[in-house]
């Protein structure tokens, strides 16, 4: 029986949060230098740096639990895709599904709809964890929630602009929503790590997250004049370690330098 003073978030759950924020930070960083306008390019880079900053704090917290061999870098750079526990949603490329070996440009609508669906979730998660009895996790949540509220505002504005914009922007936003919405089912099915976090009483409560999340989705879609898209069908399992084919390429990019030069310092 643990008391409030020494309740710690389970390592597996901290890693789930860390992997999720790192993978989306890395994914969104692909826009760096390629944004649709200079100002949006900077906005997206800021968003990525916020997420990577959150990941660093979470990996440091995890490393303290994982033992003397573990560090922020070892957890980020020396685990393979099978060890990562991020949501599948955040590892998907910036475009819809396509034939193998096909190439497609980044689609800004996909990026923004994803950021909207995800930051909408994380605002709820951080709001719960802000009051966690795990003091260090609570401090990370208190910092992250301010950043995430801004990410939500930024993404919401774009979803509305694109949905209620030109025929092209509306069609692209709707296509992105139809493609990504099924992946949000993963949010609500507790992973083993989430279940142990809830059992440990660290402040997480998945059941109460969905209604406010859905309310925000409905409000934004109505304002954007987009059609609600069913979140049904295949349930992705990234947070259980079952990933799409896209994660290994993303990690290959991200980890290659650290692996080629293991002692490199910069």
């Amino acid at each position, binding site marked *: 029986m643990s008391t409030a003073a020494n309740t710690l978030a389970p390592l597996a759950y901290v890693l789930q949060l860390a992997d999720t924020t790192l993978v989306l930070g890395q994914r969104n960083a692909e826009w760096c230098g390629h944004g649709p306008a*200079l*100002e949006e390019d*900077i*906005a997206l880079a800021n968003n990525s740096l916020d997420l990577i900053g959150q990941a660093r704090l979470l990996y440091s917290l995890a490393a303290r639990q994982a033992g003397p061999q573990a560090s922020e870098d070892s957890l980020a750079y020396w685990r393979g895709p099978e060890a990562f526990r991020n949501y599948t949603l955040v590892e998907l490329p910036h475009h819809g599904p396509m034939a193998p070996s096909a190439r497609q440009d980044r689609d800004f609508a996909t990026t923004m709809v994803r950021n909207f669906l995800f930051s909408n979730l994380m605002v709820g998660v951080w709001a719960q964890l802000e009051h966690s009895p795990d003091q260090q996790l609570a401090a990370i949540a208190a910092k992250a929630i301010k950043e995430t509220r801004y990410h939500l505002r930024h993404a919401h*504005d774009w979803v509305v*602009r694109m949905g209620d914009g030109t025929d*092209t*922007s509306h*069609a692209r936003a709707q296509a992105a929503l139809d493609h990504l919405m099924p992946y949000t089912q993963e949010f609500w099915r507790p992973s083993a790590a989430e279940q142990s976090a809830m059992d440990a009483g660290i402040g997480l409560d998945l059941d109460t997250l969905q209604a406010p999340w859905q309310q925000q989705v409905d409000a934004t879609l109505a304002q954007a004049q987009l059609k609600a898209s069913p979140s049904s069908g295949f349930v992705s399992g990234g947070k259980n370690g079952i990933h799409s084919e896209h994660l290994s390429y993303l990690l290959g990019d991200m980890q290659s330098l650290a692996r080629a030069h293991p002692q490199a310092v910069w």
Partner: protein
Amino acid sequence: MSIPPQTPEALKPLSEWPLWEVFVRSKQGLEHKHCGSLHASDADHALRLARDVYTRRQEGVSIWVVPSSAITASEPNDKAEFFDPSGDKIYRHPTFYAIPDDVGHM
């Protein structure tokens, strides 16, 4: 799902976002200072982008954005009649008395 092709017309508005001037107040009590300009589609968008472009290093506590087209500027050609006459009127500078220590920012 069918997405209409990106025609040059569809891309046009992006390059034609109007220009906005950005003013940032660095801390309470100080005035807003002009710090640059940016392109944005409307006022809210401009405010959001100003936050991302001009206050990412904690430069501000408040932002104003103003359509650049709303600013009437003096003409460089008018420089002589606008500004030169004040050049020899040093009595307009309050340099003939000491500012008390208790007076803070001035």
